[in-house]
């Protein structure tokens, strides 16, 4: 039964070589980040594990949404973010990437 799906192939081994045999370079993309109160805290706390692209692709969201995201980073991914910076980053995100709703 499996034989039908997985076709056995006859060994024909080419010499080992990599398609690319030097280090590849992942390009840097500079995301436009809005400046404003709290930006420094976002810069310091949120860009260590992923790009800003990760954050803005969520679309405009409520304050509660952003608060929960920041907390998720701490609880699940162990982000070292202080209590104070949780406030500051949440406020920044809501102000610039918010939808106006608290919840």
């Amino acid at each position, binding site marked *: 039964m499996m034989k039908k799906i997985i076709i056995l192939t006859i060994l024909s081994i080419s010499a080992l070589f990599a398609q690319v045999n030097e280090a590849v370079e992942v390009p840097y993309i500079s995301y436009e980040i809005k400046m404003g109160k709290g930006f420094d805290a976002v810069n310091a706390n949120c860009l260590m594990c992923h790009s800003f692209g990760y954050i803005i692709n969520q679309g405009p969201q409520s304050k509660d949404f952003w608060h929960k995201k920041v907390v998720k980073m701490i609880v699940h991914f*162990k982000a070292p973010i202080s209590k104070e910076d949780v406030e500051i980053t949440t406020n920044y995100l809501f102000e610039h990437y918010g939808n106006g709703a608290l919840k």
Partner: protein
Amino acid sequence: MQRRDFLKASLAASAVALGSSASAGVTGQPVDSRKVSKIAFPEKRPLITYSDRPPLLETPRDSFTKAITSNDEFFVRWHMPEIPTHIDPDTYKININGLVNKELHISLNELKTAFEQVEVTSVLQCGGNSRSAFNPVAGGIQWGSGAMGCAKWKGVRLSDILNRAGLKKDAVWIGFNGLDNAAYYETPTFIREMRIDELDDHVIVAYEMNGEDLPYLNGYPVRLVIPGHYSDSWVKMLSNITVTNEYKSLFFMDVAYRIPDNDCECETPENKFKTTKPITTMNVKSVIGYPTNNTVVYHNSHVVVRGVAFDDGHGIKDVVISTDGGKTWKEAILDKDAGRYAFRAFRFAFKPTAYGKVSIMAKAINRLGAEQPLAQDIKWNHGGYKYNGIDVVTIEVV
């Protein structure tokens, strides 16, 4: 105004902008207006780009007219930002350890010469593909429909490797780890665990994709291929296979990639279902590759609608097309079957006889009789997983 700014700021030209106050959770068509970026990543042509670190690239819709997705268009999804950008194929080893009789350190050369070589054509799809269809926004990357592709994979059966190592009697779990790393030392790494009885002979350790080395961003030099399953367990840059008798608690196993453990696999934003289960195997789905939204065609011209359909390996029985909003459905022609895990390409001759906007809908039906639901009939889940709504593209007839 705010929304405008947001869109400008986003590299993905028109990122999701759905409101988030809907209370029950509703589902529509995934976002389809994102453009490919100007920047090409290594071994890739420019793709829809969500993030550079970690790299997240989506295949544009028009690729899905073909049963095989080319390597340079294949989507990219990493969880961790630190990915090795150079691998020496002469020294690379896959280590097999834990509850085995004999630890193995398999070089690429041994993998290619000392084991039986096998091939399988299989779809690789992210569990969160089409996540942008869910509202309120479900956690994670807001993919359109292009976090999927189909390739011909070549490698060695995992079971052959495990047999060579010899499993001890009490072996139950197998953990797979790749070379990607978190940027912060306390962040959980992306290890996957599967029960030995979940792994059958079709699971392979693959070193070739469509006749070429795997691209770096798709896991060079080897990755796990688990036909029929969502891609979360298809570990890339596979470096370590550890056999254990105990399940380790891991974020990416216990929290991510899970859906409500009830019949509808659904919940509401206010009332999340308490118990969850892993996403595992794929449901039946199809995507139209041509025409795309806003394509302009002439009245009375001969349009050939093309797309791909797939499921978890039962195989596609039919794809049906509607051009009258779902009132009537006609069978599309299915192309040659490339194996039950592969994309099944379909085509459908359509002659538009009315002017103006026309919506084309595609619905796949598998050999079990399971068929795709309408987008609005799909119920919400917090992770935005397993969307498989009937695909709709709207064209203009002039």
